[in-house]
């Protein structure tokens, strides 16, 4: 797959034709992508698509059966220790002993690295300052997740791999975690974010790789994937007065106009909302209650995975 890179930043992770099977079960069939320095790269897919196995291979926790891996110029199979110095990992199904205190866990993990970060500062930044003396088991789910981010960052990594970070968090905690991840990226850490939340990938990621049935089915910026899936955007609005359909249809972004009762639905692509609102403005009208029913990453995801399913079925491989 020829891959469009976001910019000319150096590639820090290169995965080529990664393959990993557990006995007869193929967890990762053929996965290739590259991650550039300074971006938030999303690895997106349904449960069981092979996301976690992919990042576990990247982290040197599992030995792939085939393919090439390059992380910061290191081979995870060979240079595990050096890799772990420079790559912070937060994985699902990882935990700490129930009765370890927050500050003790941070001090312990800091001792594992050559150049640890200031643990107190990290706890401050992640809002765990008041929980320093608490047992791990007494933290809320969100606090445990934030502590695991602290531990993933304690070694001052160049790359942080974060797996299903916001699963199980309430919406408020999730939003706070997103802001934290952006802050971490802004501090110069490249982030690989594994998720099955479309909203999360859309909001955070510079680029995403969609993985399904152990294969990459698309790589690119979340917005581009919508186009790649050739799905269109829909804008629903109510106008203060009628604007001729012809005016709207003449816009390059617009492909069709529909009337649903008092609502006007404009279908098209590109920067549809701006184009439509400006058109109303030029005509001296006001577009109210503008809602995008735009093709989201979720639509793209469904369209792309459906296509992949259809292809697999046609090839006689029922999933």
């Amino acid at each position, binding site marked *: 797959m020829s891959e469009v890179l976001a910019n000319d930043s150096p590639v820090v992770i290169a995965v080529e034709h990664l393959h990993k099977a557990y006995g007869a079960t193929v967890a990762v069939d053929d996965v290739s992508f590259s991650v550039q320095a300074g971006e938030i790269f999303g690895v997106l897919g349904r449960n069981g698509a092979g996301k976690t196995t992919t990042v576990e291979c990247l982290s040197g926790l599992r030995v792939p059966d085939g393919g090439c891996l390059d992380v910061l110029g290191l081979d995870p199979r060979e240079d*595990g*220790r050096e890799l*772990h110095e420079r790559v912070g990992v937060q994985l699902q199904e990882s935990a700490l002993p129930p*009765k370890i205190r927050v500050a003790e866990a941070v001090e312990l993990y800091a*001792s*594992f690295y050559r150049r640890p970060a200031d643990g107190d500062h990290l706890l401050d930044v992640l809002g765990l300052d008041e929980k320093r003396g608490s047992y791990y088991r007494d933290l809320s789910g969100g606090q445990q997740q934030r502590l695991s981010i602290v531990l993933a960052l304690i070694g001052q990594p160049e790359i942080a791999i974060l797996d299903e970070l916001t699963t199980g968090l309430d919406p408020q905690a999730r939003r706070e975690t997103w802001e934290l991840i952006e802050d971490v990226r802004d501090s110069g850490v490249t982030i690989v974010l594994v998720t099955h939340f479309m909203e999360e990938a859309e909001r955070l990621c510079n680029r995403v790789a969609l993985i399904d049935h152990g294969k990459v089915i698309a790589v690119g910026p979340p917005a581009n994937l919508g186009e790649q899936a050739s799905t269109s955007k829909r804008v629903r609005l109510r106008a203060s007065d009628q604007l001729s359909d012809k005016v709207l249809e003449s816009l390059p972004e617009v492909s069709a106009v529909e009337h649903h009762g008092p609502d006007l639905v404009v279908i098209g692509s590109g920067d549809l909302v701006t184009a439509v609102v400006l058109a109303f403005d030029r005509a001296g009208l006001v577009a109210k209650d503008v809602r995008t029913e735009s093709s989201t990453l979720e639509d793209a995801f469904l369209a792309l995975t459906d296509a992949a399913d259809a292809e697999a079925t046609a090839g006689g491989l029922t999933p």
Partner: protein
Amino acid sequence: MSTPVAAFSPSRHRAYRMLVLTELRLAWRTPSYLVVALGIPVLLTVIFGSIPSLTEPSKTFGGASFFTIYTPTLMVLVLIVLGFVSLPASMATYRQQGVLHRMSTTPVPASALLGAQVAVNVGFVLVSVALILGVGAGAFNLVLPLQFGWLVLSLALSVGAMFGIGLCIAAFAGSGRIALAIGGLLFYPMAFCAGMYGPLTVYPNVVRQIAKWAPTGAAFNALHDSLGGHFPGWMSLGVLVAYAVVFSAIAVRWFRWDVERAQIRSGRILALLTLTLTVALPGDLSGEQVTRALSDGLSPRYAVEPATKFRGRLFGLRTVPAGPDVIVVSTGVSGLGRAEVRVVRTPGDTRVRIRSGGQVLYSALSVASRVRRVLQRDLGDVRSRPTNRST
């Protein structure tokens, strides 16, 4: 995972120090093992030391007092609690909780945590042995013509044997609960061999002959001889060395750091104790049809229920229905005979897998064969045949 061969740099030393410190803190916060391993032996030393008749030489024990002969037993008891129960249970729990998994992503390998666990537990053994001897000598004039060199050697080999077996349990137990169960199973016979239920001299000779081949029996003999000022004898030392070498080697070879693989292994061991019968039935049968056939066909003392399965790993472990294709058949009263019936549809026919076991083998056999008979009679046709191959 890369083979953990630690390059000792100053920072690595700090990591190991921190790991040991953390393990000590955690042990202090969950003190049940410490109470048993440090408190009870000292308490027993005080109790036995305070009873005059037990500190006097007795003919029953070949001229020694009960007190002196029970001292090595208490030491072996400490080794059993820490080596067979505490060490494997905490390692298996760490693995199950993902603590080892978490550590594997850092530059310090998870084996360092195992090392810290062993170090802390060996430390507790030494403290406990020192307390037993110190309290005995200081408060109760426990005069032992002990051979310090032989005592150190015997203790070291005993620790090697018992902790080697403990690591083996940790290697094979898929969860902390299984490790505890294995440790508990070993506890009584092992404690018996060390004379916890009375010095072995009071038992028939054949019991003593068997016990001296047990790790705890050999440890008792070696410690007893060393405390009595004798050379422990090649027999006891050799048995301890053999246990230490064989079981440590097995543990090193088979230890799995991630929980999935450990559970697969532990599942294979359980499968040896499990009986599986497979029945092929014609046509596509639904789970409901099989359930109905079993409810109607089996005698009323069998309960036929939809199965549940566990959901969630660490927190909020709960049961959820396992779906219509998994059925549990059990004898309602005793619950001893119990089989899991799983319906697997393949093109053309339906395979029903009956799994039973983990209890008294007779009841397992009985319930599984009854289920098979009913299914073949009511859902099979003349051409139906049982298959030996389970898929």
